[in-house]
């Protein structure tokens, strides 16, 4: 059999062999049996060395063409088989039901924490330091340093929890003012959220343990005008809308002048509704210019510095924010209530 016939026969055999191949393993065997070191095409090429110059040239080209053809067809076949295998894998895969009920078990923050964090964020952005303070305080810090005289009704037994060592549970966050003034001096911007205690019977709107957040700002030439501006700016952020504020005289021994601050009702926008008892205003927080005696007790010269202070009822804000009706729910530890506050 001449070389020409051998080439033609080999091409026919390859056609037949290739059509038999179904998977990637056999195609690799096929590649080796044609193109490997001892493969049929390779053997043909080896046989060229016995031919004359002209034949060598003629058949050399033919065999090389055959070799390229075999190589290309094998490569194409490999790709086809890979594609088929992948399709088979994909098509046989299980489709998972993502509509099954999810695992929605998650933890929860106390609502006070949520409101407190929000306020802290606002104040921190305005350059206020956030201070923590004790819950058991001295008479000095809770009253004396705040210009509350010895016989003031606020110091009566019925309002304050007194301890057997002479200390007391702080009745307001203002108890921290003196310590914080002494710690930082002036100028000073600080807020101090904290737990407060009042010795009273509890009902849906009274708790003996509740949270306030107090703030002070002390600098040269802090004025009433600044106080109003600041409260308006801050409360607009808290209520996420432009709130109107109004001040009324209010008496607190540690501020002079002292104010009750009302905000335009965020429910009705000031038109009058059940939340604001028809007045369009909601009494929100006491504030005022820090009393010179309080600055002095805190080691700050009232002739050089002035400042303002304000007290926000964190508990009340949280109740307003979430529509909590019964204040006792907050300290109840009842997870049916508390677990609902599960995101910031």
């Amino acid at each position, binding site marked *: 059999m001449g070389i020409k016939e051998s080439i033609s026969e080999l091409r026919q055999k390859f056609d037949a062999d290739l059509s038999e191949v179904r998977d990637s393993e056999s195609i690799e065997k096929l590649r080796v049996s044609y193109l490997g070191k001892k493969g049929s095409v390779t053997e043909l090429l080896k046989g060229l060395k016995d031919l004359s110059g002209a034949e060598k040239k003629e058949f050399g080209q033919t065999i090389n063409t055959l070799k390229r053809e075999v190589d290309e067809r094998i490569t194409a076949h490999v790709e086809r088989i890979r594609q088929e295998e992948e399709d088979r894998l994909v098509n046989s895969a299980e489709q998972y039901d993502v509509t099954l009920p999810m695992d929605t078990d998650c933890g929860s923050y106390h609502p006070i924490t949520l409101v407190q964090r929000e306020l802290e964020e606002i104040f921190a952005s305005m350059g206020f330091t956030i201070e923590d303070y004790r819950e058991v305080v001295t008479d000095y810090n809770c009253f004396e340093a705040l210009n509350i005289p010895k016989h003031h009704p606020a110091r009566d037994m019925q309002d304050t929890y007194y301890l057997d060592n002479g200390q007391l549970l702080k009745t307001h966050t203002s108890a921290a003012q003196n310590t914080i003034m002494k710690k930082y001096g002036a100028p000073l911007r600080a807020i101090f959220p904290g737990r407060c205690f009042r010795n009273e019977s509890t009902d849906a709107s009274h708790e003996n343990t509740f949270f306030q957040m107090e703030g002070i700002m002390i600098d040269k030439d802090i004025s009433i005008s600044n106080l*109003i501006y600041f409260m308006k700016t801050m409360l607009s952020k808290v209520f996420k809308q432009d709130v109107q504020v109004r001040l009324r005289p209010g008496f607190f021994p540690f501020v002079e002048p002292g104010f009750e601050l009302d905000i335009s009702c965020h429910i009705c926008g000031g038109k009058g509704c059940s939340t604001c008892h028809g007045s369009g205003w909601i009494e929100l927080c006491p504030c005022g210019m820090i009393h010179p005696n309080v600055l002095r007790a805190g080691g700050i010269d009232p002739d050089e510095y002035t400042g303002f202070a304000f007290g926000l009822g964190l508990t009340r804000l949280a109740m307003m924010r979430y529509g909590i009706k019964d204040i006792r729910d907050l300290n109840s530890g009842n997870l049916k209530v508390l677990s609902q506050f599960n995101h910031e």
Partner: protein
Amino acid sequence: MLISMNWINDFVDLSGLDLEKLIHQFTLSTAEVEDIYYMGRDIKDVVVARIVFIENHPDSKKLHLLKVDAGDKVYDCVCGAPNVREGMLVAFAREGGSVSGMEITCAKIAGYESHGMCCSEKELGISADHSGLWEITDDLPLGTQITDAYGVKDVVFEVDNKSLTNRPDLWGHYGIAREFAALTNRELKPVSRMDLTPYASLPGIDIDIRDKELCYRYTGLKVRNITKKVSPVDMRIRLFYCGMRAINLLADLTNYLMLELGQPMHAFDCAKVDSIQVQRFSAPFEFETLDGTKRRIDENTLMICSKEEPVAIAGIMGGLNSEIEDNTDSLLLESANFDAVSVRKSSTRIGLRTDASMRYEKTLDPEMTDVAIEHFMQLLTEIDPSVEIISSMTDVYVRHYDKIDITFDKKFVDRYTGIDISDEQILNTLSALGFAPTLENEVFTAHVPSWRATKDVTIKADIIEEITRVYGYDNFKITTTKAALAPVMRTAGNNDDRWTKDLLVQRYGMHEVHSYIWCDAKKYKDLNIEIEDNVRVINAMTPDHTVLRRSMVPTMITYVNENKAYANDFGVFEIARVINGLGEDGLCDEQKHLGIALYSRTKSEKDLYLGLRDIMASISKELKHRYFEFRIAEAKHNWQHPRNTAEIYLDGTYVGFITVVHPSVQSKIDKKAVIVAGELNMDTLSSMAASVIHYEEPSKFPGIDIDLSLVIGADQTYSTLSAAWQNVTPLLKNVALIDSYNGVVKSITLRFTFSSNEKTLAKNEVQSYVDTIIENLAKIGVVLR
């Protein structure tokens, strides 16, 4: 407190002004107004009329058929009142008019037409009396509109008493009128006073103030021959509108005086009270006040006595023994000033708060006592000209308040307000409020009036309030501050709290709770939790809430107990305060702690306990970037498991513990569940610095892992093994637990990883280190499996 605008109008002419707006302004400048009531607004065409003829109704015992002359004509009227009488003057609501919200129309009553209605005082809203018709005793022309004849139409507003605590001057209409005068720039009229100097030569009253601490001033006057018993209609209406009940002329007049000037007065029956002694008693006794209640008087209560017998509790209430009665025709009038704190404390102790004591406890102006008597006499003699004065006005003035002058300049006002209020406005405002201000060489001087000088106004900042509140806070131009920029960082404590909460809530699905700082004795007892002695609240409302807590865990356990129906698995936590007894300074050693309790009905106790350990470890990693060390420890509390309690350390410092809750407690909660708990001292943690990251170039050379399976003693803990490989070689980079088995013997498999940054390690070199480790292990009885 209720304020009548008619009454205010006696002292300041507010005609032509919108009263509602004024009252609103009062809220913004002086004190909070809670409500406005429009009295007599629904009264229309009610006139003075005379009953000229009465006939009994043929079919009714109660009803009468009246002919009523209302000036314009005689009306037929069917009336059921018991006190009808021919010739009687009544208030008659004519057909077409209205009264108490009811239109008066021609109606058929029991078969007869009625063209109007005769009114009771209650129907007119001027008293609570509905026993019969109001009989008009004043001589008024028939057909006169009732609303013209009497002050029936009025605007009354209620001021929040709390907002008046620091303003003794506002506890009477006159003080309120002064505010309105200042707000409207109108003139305040003086109080009318009878000139008593002609009586100065009469004998005085023997007034002996034996307690000069608690009585500042006592002024008295004796009068007799009081013939009138009933107060004038307008006075009775005002008293009623302001929340009081008319009683008789003398009682009404003292009340009227109090509501007008804020000065409480007391009228003793002269037949029973002669001389006055003001004193405390050395021993407690019983005293019957004029409301008929016997009260225990202790040695701290100031009393008014006559002939050494107590006749009144000073500043609070008179005694039954000296009460004025219907036949009283002479009286001793008291107008005094007592120590505010003493009156408040006595009133609290006795449990009797009166209109008088409420005023005294605000620190009233002692300058008012004689003014009040003179004004009282002016009113009394106008009503009853026959009255005779039988003593000189006797005035014992023991203690005077200091006169206060406050100086300041415009610069001070500008700085405090941040706005520009003119000199003129400052002077006007202070002048209207009675501060008699002067301005000389750019210095203002304000002379604090006596009614503001008892405690209210003492310093410059107080003057700022006076100026700004009248100026109006709504009129302020508002500006931001000029303050230097400075970075503000969160404190370590604040960050630690945040991160801990985030981790527990978000990673471990726990629930944050809030609780109380005291132990709940009942809840603890129910769960077999012992209350450990600690600082106590001395005046708790419930004896169960007395002892302050030393640990957060019992609180958390009680919350687990209350939520056991909530889910099969849950955890609660709180960061709050515990009191660790007293420090050396005698003050409470207060610490901020994290308390955690986990409850599970699906996990094993071991998994839950070690799970809590991992939670604690991740807190340590989160906050301090390194891990806690756990040491098995003895139980220190009765709710801790004696075998499964571990203490937590960071850098050798104790920071907390974890524990399996003691079976005696656990069984009280749920026998099928397991509960573990733990606590961390957040203050201690926050005082410790977080580790910083030390970056090391990763080794380019492969490391060698050697696994060793070891048999260890039954009571041997893993922590006791580590000494065997510590300090063997710096090339030992890591030891990992691959497996542990607790069967017949306790065994563990550890993987030791050796590597070097400089070279590929030789097998024999590593083997020599491993041999050393094995030798070290053998010394503590640990052998290869």
